[in-house]
């Protein structure tokens, strides 16, 4: 069921009615049932994988929690008799047992993810290697189904496990409640990746029908549908025209495709998250925001603090920090400072960790060299901008332009262009072609094509361009005006009749200008494939 399909909205309408009619203490049970039905309808075998993740994580976390409780009781009982060394020894023996459960659970779940997502990618690479070596043997590809949202729910479940292991949260006692945390259906499609601490309370508590909250949720859903159907699914036609014929559409077309894809991805992903958060709000559930006006970021680090926030913080807290404080990295830090001095020596381990994390981030997005190259390019650009920081500081000391409107605009445009260029790895079929097309922007002097109305149609009509231009202006204006507060809060302040008229108009715009019908196909969300 696509978020943009009529079946899905029929499903939501039924759930909504039942949710507020049944006794409130059963609301979370209904959400669990709805989530499993949603997943079953997507593909019955998906249920096997999500159930394995749910059960193994629940059990391992429970065992880790029990061991901690036993430790506390034992230490309390022997607090008068245990020496400091005995206490330490006992604690470390308990930690070892906890670690066994922890590692086993991580291996099972990341193992399932790796097997389903990367087996065929690995086979393809081995076959390429065999071909280079000149042997005639080839491995056969495996027929595996990648369950919808597996990268998202595996990360969410493993985040919970790590939090329990680190003592940040207590394990959930009910497997059914935990199953809801892992499978909450609006999040299954493309995140956000929620933390147990943030989501659990709001997910399990009883929710009264609150007109304002439901109305806010409904508005958010409409806004998400507007982004997805009016912008993303329309501009997709032009993006596909450009990237599928790289020999024909080079030079200036690559630049147009790059900018169009940036708009498409933004509208698609943020629109999808708007729908997710909106559905949750309609049900009285609050999910953490995943974006904070990313295209107003002033540099790449700032961008990654604003784009897909829950994924970025997951990698930071559960990979970047643990890796940075691990024995090998600390040893490398000592070694490099001794050999290379404090300046460079201090930076080497940080850079290495950054590259490892961005390699993993790329791999998480998809099993192809394009995504790995995309991840590593992000890491390299972040490292370069870190390395040049003293230079920037000197520049800003000499020329106090920071904070001036013109310089701020320059920073924003620079970041938009940089991030859009890096995103080209998503578009073209392989890494060498991406580099070739990137180069062609500077070497092919076909700028005159920009003024050829026939050539620039790219599969869209003049009316499509008018709709796209108007919708993109609305999108940018809403992003800029975020500083003045949420759009819905501002809408709430205007008279009810005008407010409802505007919401009605937004609905009409989606129905009239949404990309349906001949030549269009309401597509799955881009992030769903990750």
């Amino acid at each position: 069921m696509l978020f943009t399909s009529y079946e899905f909205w029929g499903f939501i309408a039924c759930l909504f009615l039942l949710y507020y009619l049944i006794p409130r203490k059963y609301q979370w049970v209904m959400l669990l049932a709805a989530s499993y039905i949603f997943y079953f309808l997507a593909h019955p075998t998906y249920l096997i994988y999500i159930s394995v993740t749910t059960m193994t994580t629940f059990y391992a976390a429970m065992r880790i929690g029990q061991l901690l409780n036993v430790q506390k009781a034992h230490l309390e009982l022997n607090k008068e008799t245990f020496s400091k060394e005995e206490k330490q020894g006992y604690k470390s023996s308990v930690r070892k047992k906890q670690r066994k459960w922890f590692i086993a659970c991580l291996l099972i779940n990341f193992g399932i993810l790796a097997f389903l997502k990367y087996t065929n990618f690995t086979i393809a690479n081995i076959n390429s290697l065999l071909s280079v070596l000149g042997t005639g043997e080839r491995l056969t590809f495996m027929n595996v189904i990648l369950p919808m949202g597996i990268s998202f729910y595996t990360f969410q479940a493993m985040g919970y496990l790590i939090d329990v292991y680190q003592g940040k949260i207590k394990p959930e006692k009910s497997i059914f409640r935990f199953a809801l945390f892992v499978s909450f259906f609006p999040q299954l499609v493309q995140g956000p990746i929620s933390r147990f601490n943030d989501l659990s309370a709001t997910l399990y508590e009883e929710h009264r029908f609150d007109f304002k909250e439901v109305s806010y949720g409904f508005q958010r859903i409409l806004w998400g549908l507007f982004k997805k159907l009016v912008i993303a699914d329309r501009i997709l036609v032009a993006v596909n025209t450009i990237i599928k014929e790289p020999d024909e559409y080079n030079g200036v077309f690559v630049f147009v495709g790059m900018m169009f894809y940036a708009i498409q991805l933004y509208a698609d992903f943020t629109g999808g998250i708007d729908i997710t958060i909106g559905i949750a709000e309609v049900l009285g559930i609050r999910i953490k925001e995943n974006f904070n006006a990313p295209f107003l970021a002033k540099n790449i680090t700032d961008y990654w603090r604003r784009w897909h926030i829950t994924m970025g913080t997951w990698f930071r807290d559960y990979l970047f920090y643990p890796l940075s404080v691990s024995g090998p990295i600390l040893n490398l830090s000592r070694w490099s400072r001794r050999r290379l001095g404090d300046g460079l020596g201090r930076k080497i381990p940080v850079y290495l960790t950054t590259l490892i994390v961005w390699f993993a981030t790329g791999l998480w997005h998809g099993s192809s060299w394009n995504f790995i190259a995309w991840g590593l390019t992000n890491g390299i650009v972040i490292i370069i901008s870190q390395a040049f920081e003293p230079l920037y500081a000197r520049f800003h000391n000499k020329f106090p332009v920071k904070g001036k409107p013109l310089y701020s605009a320059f920073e924003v445009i620079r970041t938009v262009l940089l991030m859009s260029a890096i995103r080209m790895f998503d578009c073209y079929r392989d890494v060498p072609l991406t580099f070739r097309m990137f180069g062609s922007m500077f070497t092919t002097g076909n700028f005159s094509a920009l003024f050829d109305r026939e050539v620039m149609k790219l599969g869209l009509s003049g009316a499509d361009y008018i709709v796209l231009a108007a919708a993109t202006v609305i999108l940018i204006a809403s992003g800029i005006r975020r500083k003045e507060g949420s759009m819905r809060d501002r809408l709430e302040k205007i008279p009810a009749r005008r407010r409802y008229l505007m919401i009605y108009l937004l609905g009409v715009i989606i129905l009239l200008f949404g990309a349906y019908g001949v030549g269009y196909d309401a597509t799955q969300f881009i992030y769903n494939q990750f």
Partner: protein
Amino acid sequence: MNELISILNGLHPDVDFAEAEGLVDNGVLDSFDIISLVAEIDSEFDVRIPAEEILPENFNSAKALYELITRLGDN
């Protein structure tokens, strides 16, 4: 404490770490700074800060960080 302040000043010479608060909340220390700090604390104080202690409240001021080092050192 002085040793810690001098490590912090090595990262940002222009900040008065003896007085400054909200170092993480206000973006003075980013994740790069934090892991550089963890490595230096490991070698200077022989105290290993585990990942679960990398929380804004432990790095928001030199005082909070010093308390963390003392607590971990005692354990």
